[in-house]
């Protein structure tokens, strides 16, 4: 009998207003049934200064509510300022850090850290290298199938986490597409990414939903939904699932995943409940079934 997997609330990838983001975390601290909560800017260092002053009180509130707090690093680190921030983050004492760039993992000097989903971890050789560097948990890339994540989980003593809900981070760039869509440069971006708190929808010329843009990050248009897959993955030693925050009711989304994992809510009923929680969302789970990421494969195949 395997134990019930844990739930992680991933870092908020979008540019939410600082007060709204603080209030989101306060509500998560008080009401959300999740085991771990990630805090920190992953996508664009230009956004960092706005939320930084709120981080101590958010961390304190989350920890006070019994949640494990993890500080997530930037994904693409280039400038001196970003390098200095990453080094400082890696030196943080008493709180777990998630490395989303190899430079952060390299600074850990054997202290425990989480290997984030934006590192390229596709095989047991790389898992072993990261474990030797101090990684205690790994959140795997979205591209991997159930067979691949099960194979990796069987090969390691590390806790293995799989992304299970939300728009998927698919690519990162030096160029800002939110700014470009409005004929602005990245330097003069006017922080227009804040206009789209769940990302900017991108459609094909036939107006078919396609992708979403979150500043320098390109994401799936579809919302990843592994409600029908998490119990099968749990039986294959996946110990943890990540929910990416969206503007929908994340407390309710977390409760739904918890209920499905505990066998209290059936998968079909859960899908209906999730549709109600995310009006207008289109769901996908293709990657975990070894297919194109945008597809939704139902439990019957």
């Amino acid at each position, binding site marked *: 009998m395997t134990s019930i997997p844990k739930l992680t609330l991933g870092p908020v990838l979008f540019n939410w207003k600082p007060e709204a983001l603080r209030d989101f975390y306060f509500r998560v601290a008080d009401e959300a049934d999740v085991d771990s909560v990630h805090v920190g800017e992953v996508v664009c260092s230009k956004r960092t200064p706005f939320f930084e002053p709120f981080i101590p009180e958010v961390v304190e509130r989350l920890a006070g509510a019994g949640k494990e707090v993890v500080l997530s690093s930037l994904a693409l680190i280039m*400038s001196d300022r970003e390098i200095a921030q990453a080094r400082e983050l890696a030196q943080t004492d008493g709180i777990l850090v998630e490395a989303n760039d190899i430079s952060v993992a*390299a600074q850990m000097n054997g202290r425990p850290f989480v290997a984030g989903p934006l590192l390229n971890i*596709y*095989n047991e050789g790389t898992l072993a290298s990261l474990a030797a560097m101090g990684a205690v948990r790994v959140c795997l890339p979205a591209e991997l199938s159930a067979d691949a994540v099960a194979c990796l989980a069987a090969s390691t003593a590390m806790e293995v986490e799989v992304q299970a809900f939300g728009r998927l981070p698919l690519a990162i760039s030096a160029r800002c597409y939110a700014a470009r869509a409005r004929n602005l440069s990245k330097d003069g971006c006017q922080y227009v990414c804040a206009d789209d708190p769940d990302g900017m929808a991108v459609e094909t010329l036939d107006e078919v939903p396609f992708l979403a843009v979150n500043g320098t990050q390109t994401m799936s248009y579809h919302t990843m939904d592994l409600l029908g897959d998490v119990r099968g993955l749990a039986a294959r030693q996946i110990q943890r699932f990540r929910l990416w925050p969206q503007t929908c009711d994340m407390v309710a989304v977390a409760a739904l995943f918890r209920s499905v994992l505990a066998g209290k809510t059936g998968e079909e009923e859960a899908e209906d409940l999730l549709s109600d929680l995310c009006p207008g969302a289109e769901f996908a789970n293709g990657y975990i079934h070894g297919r194109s990421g945008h597809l939704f494969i139902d439990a019957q195949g």
Partner: protein
Amino acid sequence: MASVAPLIRPELVCPAGTPAALKSAVDAGADCVYVGFRDETNARNFPGLNFNRKELGEGIAYAHERGAKVLVAINTFPRAGKPEIWHQAVADAARLKADAAILADIGLIEHAHRTHPELRLHLSVQAAASNPDSIRFYAERFDVKRVVLPRVLTVQEIAALNPRIAPVETEVFVFGGLCVMAEGRCALSSYVTGQSPNMNGVCSPAGEVRYTETPQGITSELGGFTINKFAHDEAAGYPTLCKGRFIAHDKASYLFEEPTSLNTLSMLPDLIKAGVTAFKIEGRQRGRAYVAAVVQAFRAGVDAVMAGKPLPDIDLDRITEGGKQTTGAYEKAWR
């Protein structure tokens, strides 16, 4: 008068998808040629392309007789539970006396460093090492000698980076197809088609491409999604995912990048002053004539800069994608 550091004479690193292209590149003046095996161990895993072991052995002999080097790209990420063909590729590159292997995966780099310590290692662009801390990690831990920089840095940033990572060498792309995302960190292709550069060595694979005639012109699709539409008098380009036209905020545009090629010929003096060791030309999927024309142009450009002469005026328009050219991320305004 301030002393000026002597310029490094950069190596020209040229693509070869076939033994014939390897010979063309060497004959046209390539210092190095980079190649891949005929399987998913490399990021240009296209039908009819690449080298078997015998061809690689012969290609290395041809290059070495003429003073050129051969680098073997083994730069996809080994599949979970099945690393054997990647390990074999590294072993064969070492056995055939390749001048270096170009690797991206941390586990594979560690394996190569441990089992073939005599094999020189280069870090692939697919590893996306964009800062000195990442680069030093690969150099100190696995003795990586050179890093191919991801196409996210400006020339000024590259100039500042080089002295901080010495003696690690840097290699930059100077011509050809252009990724607009940080290489190795893009899952768009697998999202749409199920196949990705990291896992399968392909982006926007040809098997997922469809062109449809409509009364208005031609529609290009990838994995069932429309990537672009062309009027009858327009040339219908290949539907590379990030070079398509899409709608955001009710406006259709080339949201990520236009169909364009990287061409840094005009920037060669700046890139050489930035202390770059090697210039890489993209295009293992290209034919001999393309490779020869680009190599000759950049050979002439590098030789002119090193001789203190003005850059030759060479027009590469006819071989660039859609005739459009960009200097990409090397200039900050691109961002």
